[in-house]
């Protein structure tokens, strides 16, 4: 047997005084960690398989289980950490590219946590959202730059197509294929009940979900999976995916094992074949090309739906956004590099892109400087973790936010970052029927609704404290933010002052 270069990453601690041997942990672990030994008459664990998804801990009826990081320690240094050593061992064993899932775990600065929100005192009264009207409804789309009059002198009230959001929070793109059908159903039903939108991702729209079309943003990505006229017509808006925050410059690869019958039909590709999304759109090499695709899609849907363009936050994001704003897009979605993914090369996820806070601030500023901010709405995503992050995003200039990871958390995800393994014990990032079953959409959708309603309440409370009664009045209102522990360059990019100024 070859030498195992690194030990199990987690330890399974079982309190034998509490364990009643019901074997629920064993039945519910798709990684086959737990097992019952008849000779000893008790449960044991094969710790090497554990990914710390916490499923067993959460279902154990007597609370007998704990999973914790293996305390075994390599002789690590600040430079060569245990993590880096293990990754090199892994690659020396496999010869392959390292794959990871969800947002980067690395310790990059989280600028949300370095901004503080203002509140009213004495001279301008705060508002109590329970007693006074508070508006969190937003509209996404082009806003006219001037008042136009009809030949008879009346004002032309015709607007380009808009999306109406009852809450300024949408569910970001997660494809059917990367997540399960039950997860998709939960998102679709929650979006419908909340009066907001979810996004198909690039996996097409399952036939069962056409009924939620009024709350669906249909995505057109580089692989063009599942795209046809009926699909474009079904959605409330169309999103062209140019990039994703977690893996800018990289396409996608859904392995053939996940392309079962339903996924194959929805994506319109043969069963068992790998679904490969190229890194570029092969018909887009310039803003002019992008404009062509935007207008092709508008033409196909008779100019009734807004077209979104989603880009990853990268170094020159402001210039790119300026081009997109001029290309005819109605909404720009910016995805920060801490955003999640169902699978990405580790080195890309952990090293490519820039934080959403800086990208959002610079895009908003650039569009304002160029006088074209009204041409597009801005949707920020890529690690908006809470309602306070959302409020800060609005103050930096976002019209609405996309949430992906928080939505998955609502469905039970414990961020074990093993989506690419396809054995999600929570029934989210898997296509195995026995695992998909574990996510009951009746429960899932209600938890999503609860989460977004809770955020909405908190957003209203925070806005009320500032003496602001609508997202419109908060949007781009950077005077409501102060930096804490940021240097002058960071403050300049964010367009905010330091606390105390």
């Amino acid at each position, binding site marked *: 047997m070859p030498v195992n270069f690194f030990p199990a990453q987690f330890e399974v601690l079982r309190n034998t005084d*509490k364990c*009643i041997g*019901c074997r*629920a942990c064993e039945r*519910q672990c798709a990684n086959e960690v737990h097992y019952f030994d008849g000779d000893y008459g008790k449960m044991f664990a094969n710790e090497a398989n554990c990914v710390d998804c916490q499923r067993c801990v959460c279902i154990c*009826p007597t609370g007998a289980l704990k999973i914790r990081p293996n305390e075994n320690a390599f002789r690590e240094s600040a430079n060569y950490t245990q993590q880096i050593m293990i990754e090199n061992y892994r690659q020396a064993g496999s010869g392959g590219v390292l794959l990871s899932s969800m947002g980067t775990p690395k310790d990059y600065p989280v600028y949300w946590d370095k901004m503080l929100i203002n509140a009213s005192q004495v001279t301008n009264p705060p508002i109590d959202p329970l007693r006074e009207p508070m508006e969190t409804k937003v509209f996404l789309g082009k806003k006219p730059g001037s008042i136009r009059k009809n030949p008879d002198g009346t004002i032309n009230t015709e607007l380009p197509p808009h999306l109406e959001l009852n809450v300024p929070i949408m569910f970001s793109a997660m494809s059917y294929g990367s997540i399960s059908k039950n997860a998709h159903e939960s998102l679709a039903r929650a979006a419908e009940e909340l009066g907001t939108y979810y996004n198909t991702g690039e996996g097409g729209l399952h036939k069962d979900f056409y009924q939620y079309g009024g709350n669906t943003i249909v995505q057109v990505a580089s692989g063009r999976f599942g795209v046809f006229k009926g699909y474009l017509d079904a959605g409330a808006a169309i999103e062209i995916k140019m990039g994703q925050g977690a893996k800018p410059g990289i396409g996608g690869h859904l392995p053939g094992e996940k392309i079962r019958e339903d996924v194959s039909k929805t994506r319109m590709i043969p069963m068992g074949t790998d679904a490969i999304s190229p890194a570029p759109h092969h018909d887009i090499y310039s803003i002019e090309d992008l404009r062509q695709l935007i207008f092709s899609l508008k033409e196909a849907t008779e100019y009734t739906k807004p077209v979104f363009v989603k880009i990853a936050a990268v170094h020159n994001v402001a210039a790119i956004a300026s081009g997109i704003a001029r290309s005819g897009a109605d909404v720009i979605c910016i995805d920060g590099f801490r955003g999640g993914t169902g699978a990405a090369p580790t080195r890309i996820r952990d090293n490519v892109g820039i934080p959403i806070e800086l990208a959002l601030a610079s895009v908003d500023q650039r569009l304002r400087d160029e006088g074209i901010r009204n041409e597009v709405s801005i949707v920020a995503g890529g690690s908006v973790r809470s309602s306070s992050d959302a409020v800060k995003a609005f103050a930096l200039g976002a019209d609405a936010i996309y949430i992906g990871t928080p939505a998955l958390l609502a469905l039970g995800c414990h961020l074990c970052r093993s989506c690419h393994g396809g054995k999600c014990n929570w029934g989210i990032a898997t296509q195995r029927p026995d695992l998909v*079953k*574990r996510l*009951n959409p009746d429960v899932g959708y209600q938890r999503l609704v609860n989460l977004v309603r809770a955020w909405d309440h908190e957003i209203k409370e925070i806005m009320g404290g500032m003496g602001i009664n609508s997202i419109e009045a908060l949007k781009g209102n950077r005077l409501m933010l102060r930096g804490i522990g940021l240097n002058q360059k960071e403050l300049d990019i964010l367009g905010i002052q330091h606390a105390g100024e």
Partner: protein
Amino acid sequence: MKRVYVNEDRCLGCHLCEYYCAFANSGETDMAKTFKLNRNPVPRITVESAGDVNFAVQCRQCAAHPCVKACITGALSFNSGVIQIDDSRCVGCYTCVMSCPYGCIVIDEKNNGKTITKCELCTRNAIGEPACVSGCINQAIVFEERGEN
């Protein structure tokens, strides 16, 4: 009447309902103690599994209640939608076990098999609501009104 139903498409076959049922009817206050101290807790619900299909089965409290009709001592009775068992009258003849079309009458091992026991919708224990329903991790087991059966 509200009854316990199992949505087969949601049932994961984790068997936790059996444990919550046995605990609820054990009279104990601590789950670990119930099973660790070997008091023969008997579940009144059983998960049936074959391949990927699982579903939990317990007394349907059916309107026909052949068990009540078969009972030779009158230990079983049908009261406001619940088929109840009177331990003091049961003689352990198992005629009800033979007559139940769902196989839901359970031999009470706690009483060395001298009596039977069955689901009484947790109406006679300290839980008050069906423990299998509240304990189901996927809300596959529900307690609801679906019309008479």
